[in-house]
């Protein structure tokens, strides 16, 4: 089976439309970024880079967002945000909320913000007045020490790690089978190793809160700035490394073109991030790096073909050679990009809330990364050569492309 073959498109003739499209996307995206940032300098950043507190809460029923908002306002936490999460994959879809709080000046210790949010939640939804600990937020290690002390199975000193296993089974059942929230102790009856004595012990010694903290992130302002700095420079060095390698294998203008193209991809993806109101977190940085790798891969495939064709078509203008190279690799490009796009689309739709921003970056990145190889990187090389004479005859093709066997060992020696 075959989809594309014998295509003959004048890609370089359309270069000006590509550039116009890129400029349009860049301008729209970055206007959006600037308008957001001018209102709030940290708007684009997630908690990782901005500093602050984020608490991810799951409720036993649909999350009472308005009630929480009122509670936060009553507590004077004006700089807080609250966001409901509709996770289509989870059992109870609208039960989760994320509450954020900016770092405020003069906070004594790091977790002041988390404490404030917890106080509001406890005040709004009440805590068990008996002072019994909440089973929905107990950790396995705390449960082990309680079980060992109370000894509901009457194992005495011979308990060994039986209670460790029991505690793990109980918290596992809570977290995996009941989505993190148990509403009645009877739900734990069928957990392996649980006897009626255990259930009644739990019921007598624990309360069941209506919400549980799933995730809490607190990042100090110094760390935020430091991570931002480090992620930025790591990316710059990585791009620099790529530029040097490509310049060494091809010609420096190819390296520059490839790096400009991936830079373009990152800028456009960031624009889309702003338009769709996603935040940049450390995970998103990983996605951006992935798209850099992907886009670079795509560009090199085309450049490689150009390098090969330069040897075969000595008389033709570079633009024709580039066109031919893009057309020759088009089948591969569409196939690979299509499959990768499919993969990240599935991840975006099915991957859950944690991966949402990550997979969004990938979905945008794969499309932009593929497009930039022929729409940006290739035209830059053609344009450069048009203005600086020669049609790339200085490209160090060596004997590599023609006689790969002999050439490859020589080329590999450089690698």
């Amino acid at each position: 089976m075959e989809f594309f073959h014998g295509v003959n498109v004048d890609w370089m003739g359309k270069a000006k439309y590509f550039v116009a499209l890129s400029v349009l996307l860049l301008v729209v995206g970055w206007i959006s970024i600037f308008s957001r940032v001018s209102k709030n300098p940290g708007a684009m950043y997630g908690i990782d880079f901005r500093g602050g507190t984020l608490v991810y809460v799951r409720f036993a029923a649909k999350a009472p967002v308005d009630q929480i908002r009122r509670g936060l306002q009553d507590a004077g936490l004006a700089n807080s945000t609250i966001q409901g999460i509709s996770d289509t994959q989870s059992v109870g879809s609208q039960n989760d909320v994320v509450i954020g709080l900016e770092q405020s000046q003069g906070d004594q210790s790091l977790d002041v913000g988390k404490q404030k949010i917890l106080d509001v939640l406890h005040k709004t939804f009440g805590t068990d007045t008996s002072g019994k600990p909440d089973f929905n937020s107990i950790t396995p290690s705390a449960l082990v020490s309680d079980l060992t002390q109370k000894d509901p199975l009457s194992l005495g000193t011979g308990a060994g790690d039986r209670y460790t296993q029991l505690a793990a089974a109980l918290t596992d059942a809570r977290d995996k089978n009941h989505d993190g929230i148990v509403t009645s102790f009877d739900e734990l009856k069928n957990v392996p190793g649980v006897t009626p004595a255990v259930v009644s012990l739990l019921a007598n010694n624990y309360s069941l809160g209506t919400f549980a903290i799933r995730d809490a992130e607190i990042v100090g302002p110094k760390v935020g700035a430091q991570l931002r700095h480090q992620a930025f420079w790591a990316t710059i060095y990585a791009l620099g490394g790529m530029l040097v390698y490509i310049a060494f294998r091809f010609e420096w203008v190819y390296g520059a073109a490839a790096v400009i193209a991936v830079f373009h991809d990152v800028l456009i993806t960031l624009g889309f991030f702003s338009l769709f109101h996603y935040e940049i977190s450390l995970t998103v940085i990983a996605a951006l790096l992935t798209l850099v790798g992907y886009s670079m891969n795509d560009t090199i495939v085309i450049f490689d073909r150009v390098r090969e064709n330069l040897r075969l078509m000595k008389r033709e203008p570079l633009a024709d050679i580039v066109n031919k190279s893009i057309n020759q690799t088009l089948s591969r490009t569409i196939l690979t990009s299509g499959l990768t796009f499919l993969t990240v689309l599935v991840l975006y739709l099915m991957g859950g809330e944690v991966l949402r921003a990550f997979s969004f970056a990938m979905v945008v990145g794969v499309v932009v990364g593929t497009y930039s190889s022929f729409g940006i990187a290739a035209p830059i090389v053609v344009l450069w050569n048009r203005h600086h004479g020669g049609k790339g005859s200085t490209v160090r093709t060596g004997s590599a492309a023609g006689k790969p066997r002999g050439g490859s060992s020589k080329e590999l020696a450089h690698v």
Partner: protein
Amino acid sequence: MNSQLKWKFVFILAVLLFCIYGVIGLPTFPTSLNQVKLNLADRIKLGLDLKGGSHLVLQVQLEEAIGQRCDQTVDQISKQLHDKNIGFGEIRRVDDTHIEVRDVAPATSGSFRDLITNQFSDWTMAPSAGQTDGYLLTMKPSVVADLRKAAMDQSLEVITRRINALGLTEPTIAFTGRSDDEILVQLPGEGDPTRAKSVIQAGGQLQLTLVVGDQTYPSQIAALAANGGVLPAGSIILPGSDAGTPGQPAQQVFYILARAPVVTGQDLVGATPQPSTNNPGQYDVSFHLSTSAAARFGPFTEANIGHRMAIVLENKVYTAPVINGRIEDSGVITGNFTQDSAQDLALVLRAGALPASIKYLEERTVGPSLGADSIRQGVRASIGSMIVVMIFLVFYYRLSGVNAVVALVLNLVILIAFMAYAGAVLTLPGIAGVILTIGMGVDSNVLVFERIREELRNGKVPAPAVDTGFDRAFLTIIDTHVTTIVSAVFLFLFGSGTPVQGFAITLVIGLLANVFTSIYVSRAIFDYHLSRMDRQGHLSI
């Protein structure tokens, strides 16, 4: 099949077996499916973002340790100057690394300079700006660096001992690597870091020191007023609470204490919690002193019978009992402890003091249910999309597509096995690396197949077409992979301490495996097919 091809397959099979063994064969050779599952869970280490747990980054306030050294040096120099009868006006600490000595008597300035050069070689000496007969001493940068390093090493050691004593599962305590004063503490499966945090943060500085005037005061002002508004030389004021009498709760009071303690935390050899004898239901912490400390403590207590001695922790007076007789080597700290808090205090005292206080920079807690959710959804999505991709490859390239599927699966197996052998941790960004690996793996196969199709279209018979296809695609694959590996290496080097490193690790391993599977393995399978058909036969591609 010729013998060269046979050896190729033997080699591929050996790699495959080695990898499968690495993933499910260790630590106990599996004899049941259950054991396979256990091994798998043991070998594939998941990061906190996938497994749930607490992640803390803390900063050691190193300037405190350096300032302390500066203070000590000021004391030592002034003592030496007095001993040697060198006249001087004033000696003071300018900041953490500078000391100024003013108005050194001109007649003794020679001996002053000798003293500093010979006995305080950690410091450089220069005339103080705008001062005749004044000197500015600066701590040498190498000494500062050594102090910082020593303080960090000691902090890491103390925190490790404290955390280990909590008995949690597989905690990680390490330098973050992104800044020289940060320590990372990871507690897998621990959804609430509160207890660990309080144990880490406790300074653990125990001091036994004499109460000046054996009195307590209701406020700092009252304490000063009782001494004519001036703090007696060599003393400090610290808060504490009095014992409280029946019917009247304990209140905050202030003590005037001798600045130099008789005994410090370093003199301790043990500390244990014990039920309180006076307050049933409460706990005390008893401690034991080393022999050398006991030799000091015995005479000291004997000489001060009838006076009060304060037990100070974290700049707070816990108790100030009256010395009733000579005490050799043990004592008790009482202070309304519960069993847990007594246990934690004993633990902190045993583990030793931190050289400087610490500050938290970052705290993340991933609840186990969220971690489980992200694994479940992430894995389901990845497997789902892999299957779709593989079905498509077989549909589009027919028998050659099977080739690609074999190469992709082997690629994943090698990637997972190497991560298991290297003890690398799989994180969410790591999964991003896996996705890029799969994407480039698919691409490598597509590159080769499209090239072979091109050659076939140009009229070549299968064998040379496959030959040329692989040769041409080889260069492209090497270029794309090396470029990405180069960038991943930079990310690894400059992304230390950030999740970016997890991405770089899986990417590098995955791409190396990819070069092997998409070129070597796939080629071997093609060669096998070619060896079984005639020269003019039809290649299923």
